[in-house]
């Protein structure tokens, strides 16, 4: 019988449930997050037009670089200012 030392971080992951999906976007504040990849803005401009037609209020955000996680302050800002967020990953 072999006993070895656990190579992992020994953490028990905390499971966080996603927030409840809104039934309608009308009247909600929607964050649009551009990760700063080429053409993300083109995609989000179109999304903004469509959501405004639906009666959503739009707030725009952009990561300083696509190569790093969004800064903590920005994540907090989005969470406190928006009901939902749409992130543009695309090139």
């Amino acid at each position: 019988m072999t006993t070895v030392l656990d190579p992992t971080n020994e953490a028990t992951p905390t499971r966080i449930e996603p927030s409840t999906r809104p039934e309608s976007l009308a009247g909600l504040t929607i964050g649009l997050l551009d990760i700063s990849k080429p053409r993300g803005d083109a995609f989000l401009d179109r999304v903004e037009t469509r959501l405004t037609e639906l009666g959503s209020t739009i707030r725009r955000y952009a990561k300083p670089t696509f190569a790093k996680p969004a800064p903590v302050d920005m994540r907090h800002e989005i969470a406190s200012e928006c009901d939902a967020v749409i992130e543009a990953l695309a090139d």
Partner: protein
Amino acid sequence: MAVSKQPLPCGLIAFVKRDCPTCELVEPALGQIATGDEPLTVYTQDDLSFPSVVVAVDDTDLSMSWHHDIETVPTLIRADADGTELERIVGWNRDQWQAFTGMPEVGMTLPEHRPGCGSLNVDPTRADELNARFGTSKLSTRRVQFAELEDEIEAMYDRGWSDGLPLVPPTEARVLRMIEGTTRSPDEVIGVVPPDLVEVTLEKAAVNAVMAGCKPEYLPVVLAALEAICDEAFNMHGLLATTMGVGPIFVVNGPIAQRIGMNSGINVFGQGNRANSTIGRAVQLIVRNVGGGRPGDVDRACHGNPAKVGLAFAEDEAGSPWISLAEERGIAPGVNAVTALCTEGPHIIVDQLSRTPESLTNLIAESMRTAIGPRMVLGVDALLVLSPEHMARYRSARWDRARFRAELEQRLIVNSDDIIRGHNGIDEGLPEGFAGLELPKFRPGGLHIAHAGGPAGLFSMVFNGWVSGPKGSVPVTKEITG
């Protein structure tokens, strides 16, 4: 399971082994002491029939020897009625033994002095196993016990610890031995490992280094490499999350490279050298097992590259007329250091005809202008590894490193009109607004140079990077400490 310490018997206690000429020499003296007023207990480490002059007590499991810190045989101890040690002597010294026992006749026919031998419990081949068995473990890592019928290699695969290759089981004895490769404390925090941002201790790093196949003497290099990738500037999270097939590679400079047997020569980026193959692998296993960076989870690489298993190599400093990569990055000559760079796998640059440094530099520049795509400028760093035969062109022309860099960078200026969107019917490229500019292929400080490879071969190698500079990944150099 730790075996608790047994007290010494009252009186005189000797520790001996047959495989020690001095122990055999003192056998008659032990016989004389046994006839004295003080009780004598003799523990034998290897042969129950030795010494024949008394009934020896079995210590072949070395429990008493280990618990009472016997380093030399013969050792003679005096203990009181509580089993507390009062005094001890080691080896054979006739006057000393006579005084210690208060018996002037002891060993009169023996030579005056003989040094003892190493005690079996401190034998390097057994010490780690004994420390693990008897010691109150200094290791705090959780233990995982495999079932009797479980194949240990398969068990480690089943638990998701492997990068795809078999792992060495990280038993306590092996991990203790690994930790001996450094003088630092096992509970020292080496860094915070992305992407889960988990603190990694030296001990946890050692567990993964064992699994990777490292020898203890590689551990200081692994730790420095780990510090480098945990540096925020290196942006290990980004390296994992990107869809580009990049990973960390490690260049080792300084005398430690030769001391631990790293390869800087033939097949330097290939298989066959344990240190080169396992140092980078250990770091990648730590990213996987401690940091939680696994392909398909945070690691989103479209293709990855084979070097992501782990690639480390040594620069051939002895064969180079130039200062090393580490020295150019501010490390003092002769100081051991690791540089972590974020790159793809190596690409070959063939030039078998150039005989002048100008011609070869032209060819290298032409190759490097295509790094990660000819339309990309100021986007990525690159590491150029010149082979000895290519280096010979610069050596004979007396170009130093600064001259080579200046000449190469001059040839790496790109006319933006050649890489503008739509030029030559290619949609990829710089936006129209960048027309009419002269742009460097690499950012200032983004071109890295090293020297390695076998003695024959008119090829150099280039490792192309990923998003460079503060917006992406910055190469990080760390000194290797004990």
